[in-house]
């Protein structure tokens, strides 16, 4: 029976492990914090499995196997030993370890600061390099240098959100009226996926983002490019953009578009995903997004532009994609 239980637990872990990959898994850890927490989890899991089997095994034993009486004195010892001594020892050790890693996980970052604001249902991302005059504004994608701890400031628009990139580390809530903070120390370059982790209304589940970790040098080059204004092409796409009033909500630096209601589109074309991590950065997806954003993301704060013809939409999308 015991072996059966253990095999069952093993099977369970294996079947669960099937879902343990992909960019949004805590198990594809590429950040110092996530790696440390996985270690903590592994130890706790082993401990928990052992305790679970022993406790239930003990219960099975005393109800099914054991014969004969035990003295009441001894029984009281069982209560004190199992109910007090065991948890005190185990939990003190666990708390000592678990809490000791907490300060490291929230240690202040060095150099660059990033300010992320949770909006409905997208992310405003501002990079504040050390000594820079103003922020470099971007949206819906976070890029971080590897091998360095970066300070992250969190704010919120109208409602509470929670910023979480499982592969890099734990989450912190974004609360209107407050600035909360955290820090992340990515170690392995790559793309990780984040997800809003506090229920924030109709399209909460569709509020994700890619976190791209770059080598230090690549990151510096990328940030420099991101800080530069857009180099928009001339042509019909541009005309449609301004004719339809997209600029009232979106900013494209280097053009008259300076709206702040929606995501910054200055270097939109170089992002790895569309509409806060939910669509691939492809022409077809972009066309259907502009035509009717609300059909893809319920209650999205961007109006539908279904009156545009297919070719107009295509031109517009092509023009946006070229904003690299």
């Amino acid at each position, binding site marked *: 029976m015991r072996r059966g239980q253990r095999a069952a637990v093993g099977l369970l872990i294996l079947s669960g492990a099937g879902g343990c990959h992909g960019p949004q898994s805590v198990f594809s850890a590429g950040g110092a914090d996530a790696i440390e*927490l996985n270690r*903590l*989890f592994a130890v*706790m*899991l082993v401990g*928990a499995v052992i*305790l*679970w089997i022993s*406790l*239930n095994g*003990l*219960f099975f034993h*005393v*109800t*099914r196997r054991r*014969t004969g009486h*035990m*003295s009441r004195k*001894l*029984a*009281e010892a*069982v*209560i004190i*030993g*199992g*109910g*007090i001594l065991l*948890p005190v020892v185990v*939990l003190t050790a*666990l*708390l000592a370890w*678990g*809490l000791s890693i*907490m*300060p490291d*996980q*929230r240690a202040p970052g060095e150099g660059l600061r990033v300010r992320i604001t949770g909006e409905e249902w997208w992310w405003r991302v501002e990079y504040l390099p050390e000594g820079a005059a103003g922020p470099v504004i971007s949206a819906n994608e976070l890029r971080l240098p590897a091998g360095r701890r970066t300070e992250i400031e969190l704010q919120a628009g109208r*409602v*509470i959100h*929670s910023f979480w990139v*499982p592969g890099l*580390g*734990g*989450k912190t*809530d974004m*609360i*209107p*009226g*407050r600035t*909360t*903070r*955290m820090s992340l120390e990515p170690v392995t370059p790559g793309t990780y996926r984040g997800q809003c*982790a*506090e*229920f924030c*209304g*109709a*399209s909460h589940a569709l509020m994700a983002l890619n976190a791209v970790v770059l080598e230090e040098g690549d990151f510096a080059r990328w940030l420099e490019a991101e800080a530069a204004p857009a180099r928009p092409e001339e042509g019909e796409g541009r005309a449609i953009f301004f004719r339809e009033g997209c600029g009232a909500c979106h900013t494209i630096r280097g053009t008259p578009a300076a709206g702040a209601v929606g995501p910054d589109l200055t270097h939109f074309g170089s992002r790895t995903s569309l509409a806060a991590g939910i669509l691939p950065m492809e022409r077809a997806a972009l066309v259907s997004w502009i035509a009717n954003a609300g059909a893809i993301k*319920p*209650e999205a704060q961007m109006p539908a532009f279904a009156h545009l013809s297919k070719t107009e939409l295509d031109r517009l999308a092509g023009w946006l994609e070229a904003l690299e």
Partner: protein
Amino acid sequence: MTRSHASDAPLPEGAFPPTEAMLSEPVPSALAEAQADRLRAVWATPKGWRYWSAVNNSEVGVWYALTALAFMLCAGVLALLMRVQLAVPDNDFLSADRFNQFFTMHGSAMMFLFAVPMFEAISIILLPALLGARDLPFPRLSAYGYWCFLIGGVFVMGSILFDAAPKSGWFMYPPLATQDEGLGSDIWLLGLSFIEVASIAAAVELIVGVLKCRPPGMRVNLMPLYAWYVLVVGGMILFAFPPLIAGDLLFEMERGFDWPFFDPERGGDPLLWQHLFWIFGHPEVYIIFLPSIALAAMIVPTAARQPIVGYSWIVLSAVGTGFLSFGLWVHHMFTTGLPALSLGFFSAASEAVVIPTGIQLFAFVATLMVGRVKMILPMLWIAGGLAVFTAGGLTGVMVAIAPFDWQVHDTYFIVPTCITRSLAAWSFRSSRGSITSIPSSPRRPCPSGWGAGPSGCCSPAST
């Protein structure tokens, strides 16, 4: 029946117990009959449509239980519909809005319309029997509580049929919930206020019942463990619900009169609600759990055919759990950016409840070790409940570590932690349900001597 074996209990003064001479004095049979008839008439269940005016615990308790069960089934249907939506990606079985109504109502119904009322129902049915009383002290209060519960529950649950159900999550976090357009949040607040009133009524009833309706000679240190748990849970309800009621009032004042308690732009703070909600919310976990372990505390000694080992240990840990549970609420807010020192404190406090819980579990094991166990059916439920509960409890130990919670907070890791514990609570309760008969009828004092009370002599299975 003689009381001689309850030797250490002080004998009441006066004409109690009646002398043999008094007892053997014949009563005219016609008079005796008439008296008996009158008594039966007073306690009879009203007939016809007046049935619904009944106040006896045997009726009210059953209504309570059936209503809670009906709400549970509704909530279960909602859960199934949600699972259908989630079965395949990009499913359009439910709209986002309806899904959010369903998940909000599922959580609210399971918490407020099922878990707590079910405890109240079972206690209303069982407590008088365990105490050898005819009924609880304030039958009308029980009935009042039941009708409040029914009205509030139908009101909240019914809103889903009108597409007007609350949709900001069962935790109703502002500003999302306060700024919600539509009636959903108001329905939630108003409906649940009824249920809060019902819960407080039941708590008063049960506390007074335990303290005042014990038979002569059953001192508090002798009463069945179930009564102790009911006492603790009643006290917890009295202290846990007021913060929620206060929060509800502030919330409705913000929605109704635009007083910005939770609006950061005008000096309010959304976190205030979270504190008030979870000061209620965490004790709620134990309000659900303790009554279930209470039943286990009655069944285990029955199956072991031995008085429980460590009666006072169990009582102390029940009281301790109740007390500690009011100091843990911040573990629901580990990710809100509170200072590390607070997080450390609440992590440690959350782990500390393992100790009283452990004591209770090991007291059961010790009782089973001392006795000669007979594997009666309820014991299977208890074994199952234990397996589920220990799994839920051990993951609970994990999430109580603040940094680990940063990863798993608000994820599917928490869902099973919470649900397994509730399930465990439920299977402990089913253990009671699986007993086929309840011989100590509510109308008859318990037949055996009270001295053996703590040993669970009144647990139905022993007879």
